[in-house]
């Protein structure tokens, strides 16, 4: 039986969770159920606006099934789904390659400068995502500073067209846009690692790299997974980054298809179905993350 302080009523502690629960219900569960209702619903015959089917008994699964079949090889969404997955995977890998050392440095080696570096990490949040992407457009335009510098320095005498349907630009823009969201939780995870474990490893003869590989890295894996999930989820649904940076059909992502069907026309149920299928796919990543966290917690508790 859980103990509780006698001077406070038992419900007080549960009540602390109330704002979070209300928040989740209002801003996640209700909208998500609305998406389900639209996916399985119809459209108003006059205005062509979605008419959600709130009652599961009224659900029409035709649109969801048709959309799901589109994800099979050769289907309408197969190519764009594959492209989105590759872009997100590459962007995530680059984010980790760049972000992990940064987080590691700040956590382990930055002492006096730690607060300054943290402030610098937060700095991009002061400028809206959209503005940062638009800044990229100016920087990487054919006559922009980047190409001028590359040509002037003879690094690339004939610089590429970064903004004309170039997948590299879209992936790098995703990295640029989302990397702060990866570093911060990763930094928190690295900060939580008990330093005495590292000292013990070193005392037992482990080299710095061996201590990193056998202590720091495994203990930070839940942080890596958590940070990866945090940025992978919005990257999968992103549509404005490819729009702004490329605008070409060859770099469009699944989010662009969702935007198209939701933005108007008689098929909002396809947009909602795409959202649902994407959510299910992402739920797999999320489940793996939660499983890993639970396993790590269990291991710590058992030790």
């Amino acid at each position, binding site marked *: 039986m859980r103990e509780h302080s006698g001077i406070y009523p038992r419900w007080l502690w549960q009540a602390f969770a109330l704002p979070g629960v209300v928040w989740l219900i209002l801003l996640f569960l209700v909208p998500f159920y609305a998406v389900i209702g639209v996916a399985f619903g119809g459209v108003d015959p006059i205005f*062509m606006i979605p008419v959600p089917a709130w009652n599961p008994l009224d659900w029409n699964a035709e649109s969801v099934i048709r959309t799901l079949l589109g994800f099979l090889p050769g289907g309408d969404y197969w190519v*764009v789904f594959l492209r989105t997955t590759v872009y997100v995977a590459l962007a995530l890998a680059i984010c980790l390659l760049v972000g992990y050392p940064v987080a590691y440095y700040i956590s382990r080696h930055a002492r006096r400068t730690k607060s300054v570096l943290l402030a610098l990490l937060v700095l991009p949040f002061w400028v809206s995502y959209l503005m940062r992407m638009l800044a990229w457009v100016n920087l990487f*335009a054919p006559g922009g500073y980047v190409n001028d510098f590359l040509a002037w320095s003879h690094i690339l005498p004939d610089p590429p067209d970064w903004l004309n349907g170039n997948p590299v630009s879209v992936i790098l823009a995703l990295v640029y846009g989302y990397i702060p969201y990866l570093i911060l939780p990763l930094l928190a995870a690295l900060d939580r690692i008990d330093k005495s474990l590292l000292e013990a490893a070193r005392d037992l003869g482990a080299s710095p790299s061996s201590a990193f590989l056998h202590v720091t890295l495994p203990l930070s894996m839940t942080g890596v997974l958590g940070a990866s999930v945090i940025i992978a989820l919005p990257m999968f649904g992103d549509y404005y980054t490819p729009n702004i940076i490329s*605008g070409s059909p060859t770099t469009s992502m699944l989010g662009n298809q969702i935007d198209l*069907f939701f933005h108007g*026309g008689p098929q909002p149920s396809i947009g909602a179905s795409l959202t649902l299928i994407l959510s299910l796919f992402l739920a797999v990543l999320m489940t793996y993350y939660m499983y890993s966290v639970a396993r790590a917690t269990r291991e710590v508790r058992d030790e």
Partner: protein
Amino acid sequence: MQNHDAGVSGILEALRTGRISRRQAFKALAAVGFGGALAPALSRLAAAEDALMGPGGIPLARPDKPVTLPLWEDPIKSGMEPETDGTFTVFNYADYIDKALVDEFGKQHKVKTQITTFDSMDQCITRLATHAVRADVTNITPDRLAQAVAGKLIKPVNPDYVPNLKKNVWPSLHSPFYDQESRYTVPYTVYTTGIGWRNDKVKEDIPNLSNPWSIFWNSQAYKGYVGVLDDSREALVLAMLYRGNYDINTEDPAAIDKALEDLKALIPICNPKVNITEYQTLPEGTSWLHQCWSGDLLGGVFSYMPEDTDPSVLSYWSAPIGKGPIQNDCWAISATTKKPVLAHMWLNYIVDNTVATDNFLNFNGYQPPMNSITPEQLVAQGRIPANLKTAVMTAADFGPGALQEMTLTPKGQALWQSAYAKFVSGA
């Protein structure tokens, strides 16, 4: 028997408003024992369906098939004084009307004014239909009129309050095909869909090509600098016109698939950007060849031309009458208005010569259909460069032979949207 009658009425109403198909109606009527008796009526409805019925049983207007929209209520009486006090809300695309002109209207009539914006006509209709906005007047496109009237979103107009329509506007738009007798609308802007290009980059003589639309399929040299309008109708219509198919309101899956195939062929040729920012990218030179709305090109010259660039580097071509799309936007009175007389005054104000010209030349670059505005005069006054005379329309452009993208049936809309989704997916 009364129950039977109610059932039959319900079925016919559902059929009329498009909630059920003719086949479903036959089945339902047979079930209540009226299948045979009502067969002639259903046949008439079937014939009407073949003539493409829109929402609420309103026929779908085409330039050669004009439609008189039904009055769902009587217009207001003549001779009333405009309402004063309170706020007058103008519902419109962002940056499509000069705020100074809206403020001036408010000052004239002693009301506060407010511009509320929408991103697309879909959003406009949705927000009006769900009462998310209480507008007094709204911008609307002809292809949405049947929806707006069937859904009682806009009010009928009493022409006595809008004398400027007959006085100042092109006669061809006094009683347009989409709204015969101008029962609900006054025209706002007119524009063509054509080709805009940088003549300092594109070397072909586009207007003199045997098929100017084909330039997009021969633009390998401009790869990365070519653009197509981000609009499901316009993009696919481009491909149809390239093939000489002028049935731009077709619902034939084969024609739409063929257009999709041609559009997809553009990707390896020129990797087109799909956007509606040509008003900025053409003047700035980040785009060299773009499917283009005439108003965007003129607006680009007025607002986005870099200081060190001569506007004569821009060229525009639009097809002859009946060979390329033309469009016009309108103003209508929102059904939720509490200031119906003042809303009529707005319709009259917007087709005032000074107001319309000011909004066109000093703000959005979209031409109003005013008798007082001619391409020759604009060039002579130095308001537009001579090379963009082609972006200015004349009254003769509107008529039964014109091509105008108009309302499709829901099935047709789905076909076009799905095809466009395949194009923009890059598959």
